């Protein structure tokens, strides 16, 4: 999921920065239009910390292992703050641990951040069940959490498959990439359940955290 330096050609890295720049601009514009743009910063900062450490939690899915990403959760809870949060989290992961890379920061941010934004809009559909429906919140929390991660895995797969360099054995590499993408299916279930639990918990103890986002999209 975190594509390191030296894997992608320069043109793709540049393209990634362009899309990440566009998504950041869109998100910041939405944040700027809020009544109090600072209001969401504390929770965005805390969830960035969660995103930052989540990638250390590895789940073995033979023959490989995958790690938590939580981009769906960030999207659902943070709304338009999700993209900058993921961008900052990825920046620190790349600088501190070479997890991902600085040249691929734009690509990685796009791969994980855009599905997070889409997960947020998907989660808003829970309103068709009524504002306080626990079933709707749980169901769409699961769908958003699983869908955000699933879409990110598919995007990463497409980017990697289409840029396999000539000097490696294409068949082996392609098989490896497909296997890794499929390994994210169990992780989708795990993150979906986790996201559903978190939003149900928030709805019970502090519904304003989820309500706050609803106002933005209006």
């Amino acid at each position, binding site marked *: 999921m975190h594509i*390191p330096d030296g894997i992608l050609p320069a043109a793709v890295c540049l393209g990634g920065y362009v899309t990440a720049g566009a998504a950041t601009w869109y998100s910041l514009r939405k944040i700027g239009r809020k009544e109090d743009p600072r209001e969401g*910063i504390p929770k965005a900062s805390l969830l960035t*910390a969660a995103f930052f450490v989540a990638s250390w939690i590895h789940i073995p899915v033979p023959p490989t292992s995958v790690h938590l990403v939580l981009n769906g959760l960030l999207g659902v809870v943070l709304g338009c703050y999700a993209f900058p949060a993921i961008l900052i989290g990825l920046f620190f992961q790349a600088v501190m641990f070479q997890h991902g890379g600085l040249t691929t920061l734009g690509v990685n941010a796009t791969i994980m951040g855009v599905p997070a934004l889409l997960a947020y809009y998907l989660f808003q559909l829970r309103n068709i069940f009524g504002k306080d429906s626990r079933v709707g919140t749980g169901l769409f929390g699961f769908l958003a959490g699983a869908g955000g991660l699933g879409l990110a895995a598919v995007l990463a797969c497409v980017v990697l498959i289409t840029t396999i360099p000539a000097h490696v054995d294409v068949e082996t590499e392609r098989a490896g990439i497909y296997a890794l993408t499929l390994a994210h299916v169990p992780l989708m279930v795990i993150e979906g359940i986790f996201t559903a639990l978190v939003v149900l918990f928030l709805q019970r103890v502090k519904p304003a955290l989820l309500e706050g986002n609803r106002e933005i999209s209006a």
Partner: protein
Amino acid sequence: MKGKLLATLLILFLSIPAAASAHGAKISYQITKAIEITATYDTGEPLSGGQVTIYAPDNPSTPWRKAKCDENGKYIFIPDPSKPGTWDVQVRQAGHGDMIHIPIGEGTAEAASGSTGYTPLQIVLMAACVVWGFVGTTLFFARRRGS
């Protein structure tokens, strides 16, 4: 006619030892410096079967050799001693991978080793510092909002 045949046979017999000597084997040995690389994920799990691409110092754009790691993520190669400089070794598997730069030359120590990673203690300390930065940001903005 008979004499000619005998002569031919004689030549044949005489030439046998010469032909047999071509089957003699000769082995020589030379102790040389090889480089063993070990590729693992952050979790310590090996990149078994990872694709190794080696670039010689004189041509950093065309691979000098392409190979695969064994099941323990290890690969051994002998760099060409006539090409001192920095050898770049890239290991890649399913979009994961890293590149290590190995200096080889006159001044290289007999048994050198290098790595691109950090120790667990360093990782924990660094992660703690970053997390504290995020928590500090949270506290700062939460306070400003309250006042």
